[in-house]
Structures are given as C-alpha cells and as structure tokens.
C-alpha cells in the first residue's frame, strides 16, 4: 500500500452513481481490496472514505471505482471533476480467495447495492482464471441495478432480482441463491447490506464455504486506529479483528454475530 495524490482521469455519472477513474502510480490489487479516497475538500469531512476497487488498468496506470452518493463524503467524491486530485491510500485489506474450491464447480457471487463493484471485479478475475461464475444481483428497482454491462463483458450473465419485479425476478437476491445452492457451488461470495449478508450466511451455513465482505466505520483504513473492529471467532475464542486489515473479507462461519 502507498498513499499518494492521484489525478481524476474521468468521473462518469448516472444518478447517484459515479464511475471514478484515478490515474497515478497503481499497485496491483486483488478483488475485495479497497482504497481510502479523499478529495482536497478542506477539513470537513475529515476522513477519507473506503471505496472498493472496481478494476484496474496497469498499462494505463488507472484504477476504477464506483461511488454511490449517500452522505457528505461520498457526495464530494461523486462531484469530483477530471483534473482534480485525490489523496488515495491503498490497495488496502485482504481479498476474496481466488482458488481453494473444486475447480469443476462454479462459484456464486452475490452482490447488492455498493457491494456490487467488488463482486464485478471478482467476477472478471475469476473468469480470467477460468472459473465458472454465477453472478446474482439484487436491487430495489431496475434503476438500482449496477454494472450489468461490465459483468457481461467478463463473459458472466448476471442473474437479477428486484424488490418490485421491474427487472429479473421479483423478490430478494437470496431467492436466486437458494436455487443455485441446489447445484452445490464450490463457494459463495457476498458483498452488500448486512441483512443480505446475514441471509446469505444462513443459507450457506454447513453446506458451502461462504465469504462475506463487511463494512465498518473506518478511521485510517490501514490498521493503526482500531476503530473498525468486529468480533471474529479465532481458535475457539471470540476476538476483535480489524475490518480494514484482517478484513474486509471474512469467512461467514467466523462471524458469530452474523
């Protein structure tokens, strides 16, 4: 990891979503890792915001992110203009496993909301590695579906569920997962709202290895402030682990509170 000022090469908006491309020295990353991003916006908000890597182009020295404007910090990231600079620290955290299951079995990726970008990156990397990937995306309505083109580009067909049935199946993304679980996937990877992660973890429990990516309020993002801890089972005990360092990806079975 390094911390440096990177240049905004592009920032393409669709409603509250912005696909942000930063240019500068790029350190190779893995899906699930993230950056702390902070524009030059004075003292408020004080901290950078953790944003997952959506993709990288080492040849062009570019990293891509997808940011949803929800509060003050993400709104300011959403509003960045080409040519502006961003303090970018990363790549940070651990990442999703890229092997370790029966290579004959496909894996299921479950993404919701701003949990979709890291899963899109993971889908690309797994496809490149020759793994079979099933991508399930849940959203409230058709308008909230993310990165469908990007996912299809990687050769993966997104399976879709929307709350209102405006695209794909009507219902929760866990409905899609339940069906896939009948075919015994090699592993399940999930990123999205806590309720979704909990449902995914319960469906997988005892059946198939499940990894989830967590969110937490972060101070530093690189392991020094201890603000992002979560309770994790380790060697029979429950201990604090840092979401920014030992995470953000955890085995679902290790999270007693999920």
């Amino acid at each position: 990891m390094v911390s440096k000022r990177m240049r905004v090469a592009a920032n393409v908006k669709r409603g509250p979503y912005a696909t942000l491309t930063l240019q500068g020295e790029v350190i190779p990353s893995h899906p699930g890792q993230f950056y702390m991003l902070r524009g030059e916006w004075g003292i408020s908000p004080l901290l950078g915001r953790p944003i997952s890597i959506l993709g990288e182009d080492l040849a062009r020295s570019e990293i891509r992110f997808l940011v949803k404007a929800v509060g003050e910090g993400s709104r300011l990231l959403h509003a960045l203009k080409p040519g502006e600079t961003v303090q970018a620290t990363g790549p940070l955290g651990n990442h999703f496993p890229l092997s370790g299951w029966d290579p004959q079995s496909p894996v299921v990726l479950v993404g919701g909301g701003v949990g979709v970008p890291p899963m899109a990156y993971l889908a690309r990397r797994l496809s490149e590695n020759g793994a079979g990937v099933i991508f399930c995306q849940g959203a409230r309505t058709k308008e909230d579906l993310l990165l469908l083109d990007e996912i299809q580009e990687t050769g993966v067909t997104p399976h879709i569920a929307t709350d209102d049935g405006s695209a794909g199946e009507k219902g929760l993304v866990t409905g899609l997962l339940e069906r896939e679980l009948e075919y015994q996937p090699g592993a399940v990877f999930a990123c999205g709202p806590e309720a979704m992660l909990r449902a995914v973890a319960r469906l997988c429990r005892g059946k198939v290895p499940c990894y989830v990516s967590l969110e937490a309020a972060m101070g530093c993002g690189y392991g020094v402030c201890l603000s992002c801890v979560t309770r994790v089972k380790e060697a029979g005990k429950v201990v604090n682990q840092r979401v920014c360092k030992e995470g953000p990806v955890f085995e679902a079975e290790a999270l007693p509170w999920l």
Partner: protein
Amino acid sequence: MAVNLAVKVGTLLLKNPVMLASGCCGYALEMGEFFDLSLLGGYCLKGLCAGGSEGNPPPRLCETPGGLINSIGLQNIGIEEFLREKAPKLRRVNSVMVANFYGHSVEEYAAAAEKLQAEPCIAALEMNISCPNVKTGGIAFGTDPKLVHEVTAACRKATRKPLWVKLTPNVTDITETARAAEAGGADALSCINTYPAMAIDVEKRAFKINTRSGGLSGPAIKPLAVRAVHLVSKAVKIPVVGIGGISTWADAVEFMLAGAAAVQVGTALFSNPNAPLEILKGMEEYCIRHGFKDVADLVGAARDFERPDCNLPSAVIVTGEKVRK
C-alpha cells in the same frame, strides 16, 4: 542555509521535532509501509497495559465538524505480547520510540512501567493518565493533581527511562496537574490527550458511538491545545510536547511558538499517512524563510500583538489570560 532540526526533550535528542502520536500509528510497523520511520523525530506506541485489553464495542468512531470522536477503549495486545512479537522488529528502526502505557490503579501503572523498563529499544515512557482509577469510582487519574503526583512518583521509582506524562485537557486548570506531574518526577509533559465529546445521529436518534462519549481530536481542538501547551510551558521547567489537531507544517510551527519543544501528529495520519514528512519539509522551509538556523529557536517565540489602536490604555481585560503591564 542549513537548518538544525534536532531538538532536545529533556535528555533525549530527537532528529527533528516531528513525532507520531499514540493510538494513531499502531505499533508503528504499519507506518513503515508509507515511509522510512527513521526520518522522523520519534513515534509513540498505542497505549499498552499489562495483559492487554479488548477495548470498547463498536462503533468506536465518528466524525464531527473538523474533528473526530473515538472510543477505542485502549484496545492493545498487552506489554508481554508487545515485547515478544513487536519489539524485536522495532529494534531495527533508528528513531526515538516512546512507549505509551496505562493502568487502572497506581500499582498497575508502576508495574507496567517496570515491565517496559527492560526493553532497550524503548527510549522513553509516555504515561497516559486519562484513564479511570478503578479505586476511586472511575474518576480519571489525570483530573486530580494529588493522584497525578502519586502515580507519577510511583512510575518514576519504577523506571530509569525518561518519563513523559500525557496530560488530559479535561480539567479546570491544567497548570495544576502539570505542576503535579513535574513535582512527581516527570521528564516531559505530553500536551494534550483528547477532549470528552459526544455526537448523536438525528435520523437514527442514537448516539453515534457505543460508549456515548468519546475523545475529540483533529483540527477542531487545535486552538484549545495550543492554549494548553502555552499555559503549561509557562508553568513548568520541563519540556512540553505539543499535540492536538496538527495537520500542516504551520500547525506544528504554531505549537512550537506556543512553547512546545516537539510535536506529535495524530488524527492527521488517517487522512494522509504522509503528513509527518510533509510537515517536516514545511517546517524546514519555514525556518529558512524566516532565517532560523535552529528549529529550537521557535520554542515559545510568540510575541504579543502590536497595533497602534490596540495598545492604548483601554479597559481591564476581563477574559483571556494575557498579563498586562
């Protein structure tokens, strides 16, 4: 022009006045990924206690205007594990390492100081006295001058290493606790720790951090800390290390002009891990620009304001602390 950036804090010589503040750089190893730690004056470890601590439940952090509230609850791996796992790696770093520590009784403090005494790579001990005293119903050690004296004297006996006492600002008169620490045998005073604060999420109608109150740090507290440093540096003879909201070279210079012999950078590391080096560079340039050959000449060099229409015989000063002739 070459600027001498080295400063003395008591008997300790720092390469330069810029240190990392406790709790904001972990056990320093993580910072080493961003820059060479030996470029800095020194660094303070996350507060250690015997046996370690799990700290408080999350959420432990929230932002406020220009500031940050934390309620980590002093989670740490414990002195024993630190000495076993981390210290061997840190011995290679050529910079002043200060071990921040705490306890919940005078005995625990003294025992912690003694345990840290043996490790050669520890250059000084920094005693965090913002902790509650379990024997007096949880009132923080640092708020009672008598307790400050007692706990300082007990640790003074327990260690031969330079002993820095880190003052809490949550007192009516910080010069009283400062003098108590000096009388108890402190070699330097770290000034200051965080300010008790609270924030509420109005949409959720819930306290933003689990413990309701936590400690405020960051730019918001800088003017409070500058005053504390100034008052303390006038009240004691031992050196003062300035801490509180330092994010730029100008902030660091401001603390030195107020009376600090060295400074520590805390919260600023979170948004910009390279801040300490940028601060150091800016301080050197400032010295060149203003003709200072020695950065130590900045210490306490702030002057009173002079302007024709403000030094007229005007009213009595009813607030503020300037001593007028």
